[in-house]
């Protein structure tokens, strides 16, 4: 067992526990985006930052990937954490304002503006789909390629992958397209959003014969007309 202090509260966790898990077990909320139970931690969105250490050695780390260590002092809501978190949300809004998930996070943290050039991207490269495909669907049909600005998610050579079973798991976990067309939970859907924003499933031909369990999804209905 490892003993550490989170926001002044001492707790003991098993070796291998992440700071996020440790904090959650004490009930401290930490926003996350690229983290999902059942998928391995990745640390891409940088939303879950917490502060560790003291004095000049204090630093921020992503709680979803950082392992609990003996004697560690963790702060989940220090002013430094909040400043970073707010900026990450602002950056997310600047790149992907149409995502319901991101809108919800912004609303929950009272972020109501962003000061950068507005973009409308349909992927924030959180890697959930890649991990879903590899770790839960055992397919490894999609992956990352390129770096920096050129990094994208896709299949090898951009052709339909032989190992892809069209399960749709990737779309299901995606924070930038999933919720805006999930009509099954109406209170979460920004209604009509999908109709205005052309969800990727309709736009991209390769999803033609995909098995879709997000019914009824307005998008396909519109497409039929």
């Amino acid at each position, binding site marked *: 067992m490892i003993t550490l202090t989170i926001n002044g509260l001492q707790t003991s966790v098993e070796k291998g526990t992440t700071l996020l898990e440790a904090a959650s077990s004490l009930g401290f909320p930490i926003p996350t985006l690229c983290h999902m139970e059942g998928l391995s*931690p*990745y*640390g*891409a*969105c*940088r*939303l879950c*930052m917490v502060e560790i250490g003291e004095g000049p050695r204090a*630093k*921020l780390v*992503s709680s979803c*990937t*950082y*392992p609990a*260590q003996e004697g560690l002092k963790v702060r989940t809501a220090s002013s*430094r954490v909040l*400043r*970073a978190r707010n*900026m*990450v949300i602002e*950056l*997310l809004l*600047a*790149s992907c304002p149409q995502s319901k998930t991101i809108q919800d996070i912004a609303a929950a943290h009272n972020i109501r503006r962003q*000061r*950068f*050039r507005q973009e409308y991207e349909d992927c*924030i*490269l*959180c*890697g959930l789909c890649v991990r879903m495909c590899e770790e839960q669907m055992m397919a490894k049909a999609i992956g*990352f390629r*390129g*770096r*920096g*600005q*050129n*990094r994208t998610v896709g299949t090898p050579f951009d052709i339909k992958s032989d190992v892809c079973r069209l399960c749709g798991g990737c779309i299901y976990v995606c924070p930038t397209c999933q919720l805006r067309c999930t009509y099954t939970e109406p209170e979460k859907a920004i209604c009509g959003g999908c109709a205005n924003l052309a969800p990727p499933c309709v736009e991209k031909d390769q999803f033609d014969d995909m098995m879709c369990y997000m019914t009824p999804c307005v998008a396909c209905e519109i497409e039929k007309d």
Partner: protein
Amino acid sequence: MERLQVIEDFSSLQARLTADREPNIPVIVIPAGTCGQASGANDLIRVTKRELLDKGLTDKIHLRVTGCHGFCEAEPSVLIEPQGTFYPKVDAKQMVRIVQAVAADEVLEDLLFADPETGRGFYRYDKIPFFRNQQRSIMRMNQALDPIRIYTCIVSGGYGALQDVLANRSPYQALQEVKDSGLRGRGGAGFPTGLKWDLLAALPDEPAKILVCNADEGDPGAYMDRSILEGNPHSIIEGMLIAAYATGATEGVLYVRNEYPLAIKHLMIALRQCRELGLLGDDILGTGLRFDIELVRGAGAFVCGEETALIRSIEGKMGEPVQRPPFPVEKGINGRPTAINNVETWANIPLIFKLGAEEYAKVGTNGNTGTKIFSLVGKIKNTGLVEVPMGITIEKIVHDIGGGARGNGKIKAVQTGGPSGGCIPADRFDLPVDYDSLAKAGSIMGSGGMIVMDDNTCMVDVAKYFMNFLMDESCGKCFTCRKGTQRMYEILEDISNGKATLQDLDLLEELAHVVKDTTMCGLGQTASNPVLSTLRYFRDEYIEHIENQRCPAGVCKELVTYSINENCTGCGLCVTVCSEGAISGEKKGRHVIDVDKCIKCGSCRTVCNFDAIDVR
């Protein structure tokens, strides 16, 4: 090559080679690293060989082709030993004369390196200020040996430290020696090397431990690692062998970027020769030591120099950093304990044992021992690789060794630490160059790049340039690194186009701090340095761009205007080069530029002989 069975075999080989030496025969030394070859060293080698053969001088004069000596400004250069005569910028015709002069034991005064102040030639290379003010303990070896001939290496002391360690010390003592030397990693972070080895040595022998030489060197304008790899690959192998003995590691990996073909060639040759001699493999020199080294080529991403990305790259995965802890020493390549050190760190190891830890630690300052090689480039007279004791001031490097500003510019700052380093302004040149002082001044030591800037350099433009590099080279995993660098670049672009407001500047600064805080690896954590350090020391330049729409250095195109001043003689030369027909004027009268037509290409300024074109 005969395999050396026991330690005594090595000693007798060394003794035999030393006895065979002919110290009185003059040697023509031609540095032919990548830099030397690019500036024409291969021609010199060819001419020299032909000349020696034609004149039947092969017994009287020897030729040694070596790696880079560091004085890039003077390349292709020739050094005559044992006299130490140095000829800079030699061409093929001059080379013929040099060979004849060596044969006649003469010195060609007209070809010597001339003192820029007195105009007199220097008779010995080590009297030239560029060399005289350095302390070349590592670079000097490049001069002494032919990297593709292991015997020239052994005769100049190569593998002597290994022999000494194997014969006279226990692994524990060897480790202690490295700890006592105070050596800190030269790859950038300055982690104590002895401590890293200690952590590795403390682990059990199973699973097998791995040592890695990080030769990814991706910083633009830095090439000190390349010069060691090309010029003295054996120093790295020897360092790794000593570490293998001290820590119990059995496998080594040399991770070299594929853009260094000559280094790869020299390393392959060195590895082969070591295996033939029995310096690598099973039961090395009969001591039971087992160690071999594999060479892995990197595909050229800057981020693959970061140790966790490097490990993934070696494993054949995408070069993408992962969370530390666990550190590579606990969980490295394929989950096995791995100690990664930089090229220059490895090259320092034999030196520690040659001098003894105590003597080694006398160089430099407390906590920053030994020498460091910097690549000195930019608006400076003597560009090249300079090796100096740690803790020397920037002033000494820039003025005493670098020879001060090039042309009539005035030096305004140096940028240290590569793309994610920072700028140090001229009024802080009394700063000692060591890990801690540089970090305090808002920069980093990095791998040792040093770019000198003068008053024709715009600091906003500098920050923009490096941000562009980092934006491309970020692996893209962390949202705040990928988007943060892009957003910082956008704001910098707006500033240099005169489209930004003071609020944008605040946003830039705010974002810079957050990017530093919220990224996973060293690339993102230092990506803000170019912005933060220029803002810290040159904020007025930023303000000038924003409030007055003016670029003081005349670099940011959108903000400058070209005009003709009273120096104009009306020669009309500029009229002929202006593609837009923007210049007009009476013959022999002062000309004018039509700002509406001018596209700010700068052609007129380059041709004007009278300094009559102003850029403001």
